[in-house]
């Protein structure tokens, strides 16, 4: 993939306000196509909000967002959200079995998911087929995260928005998930925006980096910028994360 392609997503002067409180302030920048972009920053910086703007779960108060150089509001929301899939931060589970959850994206478009296809989705995330009939509401935090990832993969999105998807996982599982995402990126050219609190993970997996603080983008560029941040705020944040 050439680096001169149009970006997967482009933000221009995006503001997002709720009840007169500015959550995002003047956000501009792009998410390169076919690349993995890590999105880091302290709690409450506005990372989740930014991700929800990317697939139209929220709309900007002002400013514009383009998907493949087209304004985002020219897409029908369901098509947009299948094209730009999201794994939500809190991994909500539908009442029912793990299978019911994996079948959800298919059911929503009137399709069926065979048991074998469900097992395939599940095993990609490192969960065994025996989990298929398990009650989704009784899963552990880490198991929920894996089911939540597998469920989003059912839509075969070209862009994936990942919100803290490894926060409850053990080291081995983290590695499995990282390998899975890197493989999707390499084999299918899936563009990825990946929120993580783990700066080492950000450096490990990403080709590009956004740093957010207080609703603003303070730095974008090569992930290695975290090694010696020019911005004072970023330097402080990196130091805080290391100690």
């Amino acid at each position, binding site marked *: 993939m050439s680096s001169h392609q149009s970006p997967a997503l482009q933000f221009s002067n995006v503001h997002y306000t709720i009840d007169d409180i500015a959550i995002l302030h003047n956000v501009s920048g792009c998410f390169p196509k076919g690349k993995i972009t890590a999105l880091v920053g302290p709690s409450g910086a506005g990372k989740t909000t930014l991700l929800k703007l990317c697939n139209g779960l929220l709309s900007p108060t002002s400013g514009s967002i383009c998907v493949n150089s087209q304004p985002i509001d020219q897409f029908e929301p369901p*098509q947009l959200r299948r094209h730009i899939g999201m794994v939500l931060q809190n991994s909500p589970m539908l009442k029912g079995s793990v299978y019911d959850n994996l079948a*959800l994206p298919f059911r929503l478009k009137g399709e069926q998911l065979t048991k074998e296809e469900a097992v395939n989705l599940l095993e990609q995330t490192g969960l065994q087929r025996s989990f298929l009939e398990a009650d989704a509401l009784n899963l552990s935090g880490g198991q929920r995260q894996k089911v939540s990832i597998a469920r989003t993969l059912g839509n075969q999105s070209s862009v994936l928005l990942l919100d803290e998807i490894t926060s409850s996982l053990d080291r081995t599982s983290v590695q499995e998930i990282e390998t899975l995402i890197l493989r999707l990126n390499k084999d299918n050219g899936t563009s990825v925006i990946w929120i993580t609190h783990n700066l080492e993970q950000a450096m490990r997996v990403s080709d590009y980096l956004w740093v957010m603080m207080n609703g603003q983008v303070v730095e974008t560029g090569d992930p290695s910028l975290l090694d010696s941040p020019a911005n004072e705020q970023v330097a402080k944040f990196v130091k805080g994360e290391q100690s």
Partner: protein
Amino acid sequence: MSYLTLALTLVFVLIPLLLSKSLGLGLEKDTVIATVRSIIQLLAVGYVLNFVFDSESFLFIFLMVALMIAAATQNARKKGTGIRGVTWKLTLTFVSIELLTQSILIGFNIVPATAQYIISLSGMVVGNSMVLAILFLNRFSAEVESNRDIGELILSLGGTPKQAIHQQLITSIKASMIPTIESQKTIGLVQLPGMMSGQIIAGADPIQAVQFQLLVLFLLLSTAALTSVLLGFLVYPTLFNERMQQIPWK
């Protein structure tokens, strides 16, 4: 019953008043207000009904029913704060149900088209519809609030607002209908319905009173189902905007 005997029934108000006073329940004021209001409201309705029945004018019947619907809307809309256009949605629900049930009742000649029947049955239909509307709105707002994350999940996977709200809607419709269905299961075993008792006391043949009571029960079952379903489908679209995003209930 003479007004003297009616006055004697106030003994039944004195008992709770004395109990409230001696046990310090603090319900004296409310009891008195409730008593006075019920006397004034029911007597007023009685005189109005007398007048309407005597006149046999459809204009008055129409006005009475319109008044009932306006009062029911006024009462139920307090539970629907935060829903866009809740007043007209409630009005539309009550009017549709009233029109539908009366057309069936009169169209099939189940009851004669006289003021007595139209007004009494309308009162029951609209009154029950109002209670159902309140039950439904209460439950639906709670379901929507506690399932916001599921709604968001379904939207994020490419679902439509209808798909995102479906389960909450079904749960709320079911929950609001259950009291009506359950109370019909035990009716006659635990207590005689008030209307039937009234008819029997007034001298009607018990079998006829039962037949009429059955008509009312079936009518109210229909009312219950129609109210929650109609209101549900009118209300849910206001919980989303044109970009298929969830908007807060309040």
